[in-house]
């Protein structure tokens, strides 16, 4: 049980640091809005039925804005010299990974849940879909954060730092994005749950697989 306390302590630390400035949350929020707006302009000219594009737009906005948060996750620790402190704390490296991962997932989810109503309005969807879409967002974000946190810890030691993160991360999380888009599309099309259940289960499986693999490899990435 006390492992969970340590994980939550790291999440609380990130949360406290973020709430003091809110610079990351606001940047991610505005960026997600910008992505949705750009897609609206870009598709308005050619697409007959904008609603068929909605799930894709939603997940491009989520992954792109999420990337902003993920890339800052360890750079902030490095720039303020707190990375050594974090690694020197007498806890298992896995605890640090889980703390950072849950923190990242939390930030991205919070931003997405604020963006979601705007998205629903802009794409003229029914407001009743929001709770279900929120569930899809939570699951998709967890999948994003698993490998995302691992690669974020890797990227700070590269010469280009945050530039490398999207290049490494996007191809790897394609399965998460596919199932998240399919799940969201099913929700938007009002399909019965039995028809989208496979995507729901698949997304859950990918979340677990990516989180476990990243958890295992995190030790090798942060060792000095």
């Amino acid at each position: 049980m006390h492992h969970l306390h340590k994980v939550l302590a790291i999440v609380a630390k990130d949360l406290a640091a973020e709430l003091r400035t809110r610079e990351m949350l606001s940047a991610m929020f505005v960026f997600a809005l910008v992505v949705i707006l750009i897609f609206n302009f870009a598709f308005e000219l050619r697409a007959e039925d904008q609603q068929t594009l909605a799930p894709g737009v939603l997940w491009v906005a989520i992954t792109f804005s999420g990337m902003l948060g993920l890339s800052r996750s360890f750079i902030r620790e490095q720039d303020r010299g707190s990375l050594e402190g974090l690694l020197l704390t007498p806890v298992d490296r896995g605890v640090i990974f889980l703390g950072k991962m849950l923190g990242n997932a939390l930030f991205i989810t919070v931003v997405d849940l604020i963006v979601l109503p705007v998205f629903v309005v802009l794409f003229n969807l029914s407001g009743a879909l929001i709770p279900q879409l929120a569930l899809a967002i939570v699951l998709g974000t967890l999948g994003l954060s698993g490998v995302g946190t691992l690669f974020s810890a890797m990227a700070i030691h590269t010469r280009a730092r945050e530039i490398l993160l999207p290049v490494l991360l996007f191809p790897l999380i394609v399965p998460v994005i596919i199932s998240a888009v399919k799940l969201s599309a099913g929700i938007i099309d009002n399909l019965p749950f039995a028809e989208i259940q496979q995507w729901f289960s698949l997304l859950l499986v990918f979340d677990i697989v990516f989180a476990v693999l990243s958890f295992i490899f995190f030790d090798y990435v942060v060792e000095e």
Partner: protein
Amino acid sequence: MRRYDQLIIGLFIVTALMMIIALVLALGVAPDPANLVTPAERFAQRIFYFHVPNWWVGFLAYFIGAVAGALYLISRKEQWDAVEISSIEIGLTFNTIGLISGSIWARPTWNTWWTWEPRLTTAAIGWLMYVGYLMLRSAIDSPQRRARFAAVFSILAFLDVPVIFLAIHWWRTIHPVVIGGEVGQGTGGFALGPTIQMVFFVCLAAFTVLYVTLMLVRLRTEFLAQRVEHLRQQFMFL
């Protein structure tokens, strides 16, 4: 190094001979499959003898790269890092050739250069992943850290390939399943007669030997590079 060099030269000759035999068999001896009628289809079908072995080598190379990565993380011997980078570079080369030659085949057979079909999509994403691998390597200065990160990435990427394939597989595929599929399945598929099988296995063997040869040549370069690196460090701190 002398014995090693002799081995490479020997293998080089064997590879060249096998490739010539494979070429003659595939273009001259192998019969046309019965169910393909148009000349364009029949000529394009011959790519099978090179396209499939080509992907086999690509996959094998990535697999050996991931195994070498795991062995590096366990043993921390830089030889494994050399095996990993050598194998993955070769894998990426064959991956690129496979994408291009597959496109050329698809044009007369499917009437399109490219389609977002599971295998094609997986191949393209895999290509992007391993280009990312090379970028990751080139962006890290410390050799130990580079080897460690690259090993982690090579294992993750290899494990991810079947996952990506499964994730995309829900859409109906039009890529032929020649080996282990129903006869003539997919657009441009065909049945494997005994001669076709024989020719195919010769080509497969030729490509596998080609992989071994390339691997030894590439490894030699990598070992030399590591030696230069050691010498440089040794004299820098004198």
